[in-house]
């Protein structure tokens, strides 16, 4: 059978020829058959997304062949490539990438309009797709009015707008809590099994691989594996096996620290995950006390810590103690985290935002919302001190601030400090226990 996707000796560089040149994909060769569900498993910065963008025609190939149904897309004209991107591949992103100024319905009709569909035909189709993801009642809302899980379902409906035979999903669960992540996995499975679409997912989370048929490993731009997934292996064993495949050079404790850091800091930037991994390794090796570990997790980033919210730091510390005190095995720990994945950072910030603004009755724009989320993230990380935080909240919108009155700015900052110091938890439960 002819493969639907075949890559032959593909190399890709960012900033090629410059001193900062980065070799993102190194002689990558593999093939995927029509109707398969495969995953590329690897850590952040391994080249996973680059690979997807090349297959989707978003990045242009530099060296090697990217064959779709036997035709090299590197040789397509701009017009051919533009149509290929619309009808060949549907993309699902970690950050959803919905257009905030368009309604849910308009987000889905947009790709159809690009191909010249009449408004009413596109609307009817978009409603059908919304029904499929159980969101028809939200058609006329804006994306920011929806939860993360709902937004991701909209983005799946959008990916299906032009009926592409290939669906690529770039860390589709990274910003979702456990229940929403399970719902998205069900949808991906359905697109593969019911529609017979070829589905490719890139992920660094072993538990999201439960339905895939084959797993490729990707590390430092090198792709290996492609063996059938061990669907009957117990989940804890699967995690150990997968991370072990990816990092054969690590010792048992290093591997455990690496794996736990990835599982415990879902959705956090790679630097935070890496720093947590160092502390976890020291704790598991007995080179760091429980208290030191806890302090370092919640210490601001600029002072050498990870900058986690106190509640999350405490919870992780207690949780890790279960392993160091040998009350639970690593196998159990993996299984526990896979069965009930940590709420991702994105979720924490959204809940915190709602809690901080619960008494605020003033005008609130989309831009303010985006800025506020960024400022909360920086404040949690510790890169913005308390007085700087108040200043940004109080600066007028005309000067790129949030535009709160000084009274409101103080009230929000005080409330936030309670969280940072671990003296309270927001009603909405920042770090779901």
């Amino acid at each position, binding site marked *: 059978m002819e493969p639907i996707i075949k890559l032959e000796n593909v190399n890709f560089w960012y900033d090629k020829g410059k001193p900062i040149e980065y070799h993102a994909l190194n002689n990558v060769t593999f093939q995927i058959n029509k109707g398969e569900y495969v995953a590329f498993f690897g850590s952040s910065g391994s080249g996973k997304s680059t690979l997807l963008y090349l297959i989707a025609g978003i990045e242009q190939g530099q060296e090697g062949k990217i064959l779709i149904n036997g035709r090299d897309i590197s040789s397509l004209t701009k017009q051919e490539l533009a149509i290929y991107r619309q009808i060949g591949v549907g993309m699902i992103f970690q950050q959803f990438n919905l257009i905030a100024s368009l309604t849910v319905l308009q987000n889905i009709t947009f790709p159809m309009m690009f191909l010249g569909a009449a408004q009413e*035909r596109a609307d009817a189709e978009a409603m059908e797709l919304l029904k499929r993801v159980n969101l028809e009642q939200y058609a006329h809302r804006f994306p920011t009015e929806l939860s993360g899980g709902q937004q991701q379902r909209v983005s799946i409906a959008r990916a299906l707008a032009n009926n592409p035979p290939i669906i690529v999903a770039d860390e589709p669960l990274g910003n979702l809590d456990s229940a929403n992540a399970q719902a998205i996995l069900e949808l991906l499975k359905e697109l593969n099994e019911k529609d017979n679409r070829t589905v490719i997912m890139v992920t660094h989370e072993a538990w999201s691989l439960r339905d895939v048929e084959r797993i490729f490993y990707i590390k430092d731009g090198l792709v290996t594996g492609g063996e059938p997934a061990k669907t009957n292996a117990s989940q804890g064993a699967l995690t150990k096996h997968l991370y072990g495949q990816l990092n054969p050079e690590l010792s048992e404790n290093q591997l455990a620290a690496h794996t736990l850091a990835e599982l415990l800091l879902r959705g956090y930037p790679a630097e935070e995950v890496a720093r947590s991994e160092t502390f976890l390794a020291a704790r598991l090796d007995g080179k760091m006390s429980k208290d030191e570990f806890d302090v370092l997790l919640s210490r601001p980033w600029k002072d050498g810590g990870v900058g986690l919210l106190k509640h999350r730091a405490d919870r992780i510390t207690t949780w890790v103690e279960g392993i160091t005190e040998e009350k639970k095995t690593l196998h159990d720990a993996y299984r526990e985290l896979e069965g009930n994945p940590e709420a991702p950072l994105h979720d924490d910030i959204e809940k915190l935002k709602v809690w901080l603004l619960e008494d605020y009755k003033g005008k609130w724009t989309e831009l303010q919302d985006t800025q506020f989320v960024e400022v909360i993230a920086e404040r949690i990380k510790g890169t913005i001190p308390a007085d700087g935080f108040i200043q940004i909240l109080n600066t007028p919108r005309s000067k790129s601030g949030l535009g709160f009155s000084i009274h409101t700015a103080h009230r929000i900052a005080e409330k936030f400090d309670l969280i940072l110091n671990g003296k309270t938890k927001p009603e909405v439960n920042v770090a779901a226990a």
Partner: protein
Amino acid sequence: MPPDQKKIKVLIADGSELVRIYFRDIFWINGFENCCDLSVAADLDETEAIVKDPATRPDVIFLGLSLRKKIDGRTFIDPKYSFEFAHRIKTDPELRHIKIFVFSSHMEKQFERDAKNAQVDQYVYKNQNLPKDIVAIIDSFTEPCKPTPTK
């Protein structure tokens, strides 16, 4: 596709390069090239030549209504020439088996009536048909040569 099965010959005749690319991409991306031989024509004279030659004669035509036609050295673009051409095919015992799908953005009812009079198989409105609808049309005549699903 079974090895002894002949490929279905499909001709895309449209004055717009984008439409020709769109069709070619749909055939390619959905794997229809395994059971179809595609040819394209950008004007009516080229279309007529492909149909006339038994070696290139298609089994199916997607026919546009804005195709250039040369008459006495002058170039005309008028839907009536596409309808006349379709009628000639459908009234010729040797050619009438050829399926004709008119693919056009013209929404006028008169054109639909002209298409019916010319005995075309289906009038397909460009802006009312999404890629999945085009795939369903192609499915309707490629059924015998489609590969068996993998699952």
